[in-house]
């Protein structure tokens, strides 16, 4: 018996007697004999806590994490510092172990957190209403598509090629069911091609999607892009990096209807991709078509202020097949980390952190620009991430460069060729407050050395060929 169950021999006898059966097997008598697994599952034996810890520590040891190397990887998730206070709060049983607040009288903690989260997201995005979280970034964008479809029943989405590749793909996958056409608009010098954008949008378009900053780190002219779409009655969906919004204009001020995004950079760990949270904010006219939980304010029997889950007629457990989404369990704990992180930064900290990233990123961009065999991919303004091209003949060369850098304990960034064939030699470099000037200087040296080595090797091969 594991330490998680408590039935002793004495308990078992007493309980079976109370039930009125002779054995536990009898309790499973409703399972037809033919469907009973006549054997033990083919799994290893159980282990003690210290053994399980050792096993999972060994597995962790086979990964190279941002704790082990100087990491300039971003591309949707960023190695920001998670304040220790957040671990403490998320570790509190009171936040960690309850479920969705179906009984508001004993869930005021979680409900108020949701209310505070919604407030912070509204402030960040400049929009009227926010829900209490969805799964993560890319599926949040797809959820915005579904809201648009419910809103205007149109059959076509237009999405910028600058939107995160995973989000573009999630939109295709999840809208396939309700039969949406999805057209992509290419980039020009790193940002959405305005002419192609205008050309792609007509009155059949249900919604348009843009990333801010886009996948190449470039800042899009969201206001201009929105204007075109609004002229055709299409909803404007912006997928934004929340930590850039201390610096960049609020989407709500730029004609955006729905702003979604990946919340990981707000106090959540990298966790190899999840769990994190997605945020989903919109203009008030869309509130009754929003997906997910929403906390609202009310009063109790004695007139005390309190919070409850509200507008539930949108949701699956009430509206079933007519629900505006099927989401049930979302990301409450990760959203808690998000709102605590935003409060930890505070009004000024958010801006200061943004400026720190802008300055260091500019420094890094210039520095790498001077490295042999490293060329900028675009000239657009950026906040925290930028794209360069390495003169190493494509993705394989870039991957070998990554291996060389890894050997020196440094990860220079994301190989763009994995998702952007047109930038086969591309490298996407991200900066956070954890990457000091010294780290950036080292990046220039190590990357420069790796590129040089790769080029001379290819030259050698070329010569010998």
């Amino acid at each position: 018996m594991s330490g998680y169950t408590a039935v002793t021999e004495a308990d078992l006898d007493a309980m079976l007697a109370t039930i009125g059966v002779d054995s536990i097997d009898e309790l499973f008598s409703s399972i037809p004999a033919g469907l009973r697994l006549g054997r033990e599952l083919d799994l290893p034996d159980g282990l003690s806590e210290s053994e399980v810890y050792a096993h999972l520590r060994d597995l962790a040891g086979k990964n190279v994490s941002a704790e082990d190397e100087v990491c300039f990887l971003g591309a949707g998730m960023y190695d920001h510092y998670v304040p220790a206070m957040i671990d403490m709060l998320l570790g509190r049983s009171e936040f960690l172990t309850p479920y969705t607040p179906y009984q508001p009288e004993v869930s005021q903690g979680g409900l108020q957190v949701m209310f505070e989260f919604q407030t912070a997201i509204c402030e960040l995005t400049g929009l009227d209403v926010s829900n209490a979280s969805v799964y993560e970034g890319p599926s949040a964008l797809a959820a915005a598509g579904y809201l648009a479809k419910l809103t205007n029943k149109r059959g076509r989405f237009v999405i910028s090629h600058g939107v995160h590749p995973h989000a573009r793909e999630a939109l295709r996958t999840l809208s396939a069911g309700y039969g949406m056409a999805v057209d992509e608009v290419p980039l020009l010098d790193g940002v959405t091609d305005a002419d192609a954008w205008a050309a792609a949008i007509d009155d059949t378009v249900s919604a348009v999607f843009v990333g801010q900053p886009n996948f190449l780190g470039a800042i899009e002219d969201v206001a201009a892009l929105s204007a075109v779409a609004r002229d055709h009655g299409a909803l404007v969906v912006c997928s934004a990096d929340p930590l850039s919004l201390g610096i960049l204009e609020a989407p709500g001020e730029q004609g955006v209807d729905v702003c979604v995004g990946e919340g990981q950079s707000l106090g959540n760990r990298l966790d190899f991709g999840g769990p994190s949270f997605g945020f989903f904010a919109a203009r008030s006219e869309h509130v009754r078509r929003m997906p997910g939980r929403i906390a609202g304010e009310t009063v109790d029997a004695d007139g005390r202020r309190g919070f409850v889950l509200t507008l539930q007629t949108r949701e699956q457990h009430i509206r079933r097949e007519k629900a505006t989404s099927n989401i049930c369990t979302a990301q409450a704990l990760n959203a808690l980390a998000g709102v605590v992180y935003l409060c930890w930064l505070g009004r000024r900290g958010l801006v200061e952190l943004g400026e720190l990233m802008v300055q260091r990123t500019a420094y890094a961009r210039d520095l790498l620009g001077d490295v042999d065999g490293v060329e900028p991919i675009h000239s657009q303004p950026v906040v925290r991430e930028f794209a360069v091209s390495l003169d190493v003949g494509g993705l394989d060369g870039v991957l070998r460069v990554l291996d060389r850098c890894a050997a020196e304990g440094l990860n220079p960034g994301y190989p763009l060729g994995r998702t952007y064939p047109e930038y086969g030699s591309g490298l996407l470099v991200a900066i956070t407050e954890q990457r000091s000037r010294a780290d950036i200087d080292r990046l220039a040296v190590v990357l420069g050395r790796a590129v040089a080595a790769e080029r001379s090797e290819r030259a050698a091969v070329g010569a010998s060929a």
Partner: protein
Amino acid sequence: MSVQSAAGAYETAMQRDRAETIFMKGAPGRRAFVAPAIDVPVRPLDDLIPARLRRGREPRLPEVSEPELVRHYVNLSRRNFDLDSGFYPLGSCTMKHNPRLHERVAGLPGHARLHPFQEPARAQGALELMWNLERALSEIAGLPHVSLQPSAGSHGELAGVLLTRAYHDARGEQRTKVLTPDTAHGTNPATVTMAGYEVVKVGTNADGGVDIDDLRAKADTDVACLMLTNPSTLGLFDENIAEIAKIVHDVGATLYYDGANLNAVMGKSRPGDMGFDIVHFNLHKTFTQPHGGGGPGSGPIAVSDRVEPFLPHPVIVRTEPAETNGAGSGQAVFDLDHDRPQSIGRLRGFQGNYGCFVRSYAYICSLGAAGLRDVSEVAVLNANYLLAKLGKLGVLDLLTPAYGRVPQVGDGEQQNHSHHGADDADARRQWGCMHEFVLSGAPMKRELKIRTLDLAKRLLDHGVHPPTVYFPLVVEEALLIEPTETETRETLDRFAESIAEILREAREDPEIARGAPYTTPVRRLDEAAAARRPVLRESL
């Protein structure tokens, strides 16, 4: 003096502290965050980002010191009821103990600070863990292939129905309908609609199982899939499952298993063996990922061979030591395969909720095969014990079990009963269930004039979390009770006595229950008012 008037006259400390959001605290200029010094040459912002792209008005985030921030949220946390404090028999949610070991291993930097775009060669531990978890889930489900990508159960459902669509498309079939029983969880029909299918409800028979005749009537070649959970949301195992599978398969549809109730049958019976094509798991239920106040969760799916080609990508692949060309000293090598031409694509970013995988994998390692079987056996034992205990306390006349009557001696099946150990007639059980059971508060409402909601609210004053209420919809004034395997007999006894006590109290004075709760941080909340005039954010 009655509890109520006392409550009116006397506020608990928590009730006295009125709700104040963090936005109402602090003062301009306060901060918890200290920014690292800008260690690079500072350039004018205008040179870097044109003013027109920059923010006009900064977000009005709170301005608080770290101590203020900590106190706010620590005190807020105390306004939650939680599983580490008391019994939480929320039906269909499997609120089992969350071992802290899982938080520790998930927090190891090698897992927690691993970037999702780290090159597979430098994320071998993570991929090996995911591979091992996939194999374990495959064995538990009795289906060969697994994708860990879905973010939660309903996300898994959506994946499952989209897989079904892809499967039919590939065979050039256009099907339009998906069947769901009227006992189904709301996410099932909601998912069907999002996947572009029409929902067709199937009825429930007298035993709480699928109405076979109704199913036969509705199962035609327009049907793409039947979504089922077994045991059902009534906590009953559908004995006709084999026949149901045959009917569904005969019309070429897929059979989908909603795995929310898997905690009843681990190591006892496998969905794959029952004939299901697609299964979703709720790692946050069966495999004890903490519920976090409403997530995170994780909803991996297991599928049969015919559905495999359509799985979301990437897929984890393992290259055996032999095959590895010098890659790793005799070690198997793991990689992510994106080259999946028939794949439905991605449901989300990256590889799924890895942090949840670490926890659930640790859980499986701790329990092993025997431990997992134990889990289901004790989960079912605890549910049946609680049901019987309630019977012994005479509660079941007012809270009647929905379905689940056990055939008595004579009607075959139970002959062995005659050889019963402590063989006293009245010890013979009347009602049975799997890991959870449903009671109807209809008689209570009739006779005591209190509703299931009132009972639930009064339970709060007894320091336990109420069961799921008003679900499943097919049962009037429903209470869905799932104790889980990690509760002690003493806890189950106390809970049963609380129910009995509340009914006794209500017989004397129903107002007490109707006015409940009294001792909670706030008293009964007006949900209607909240929906009428929605206030969804703090006004600044």
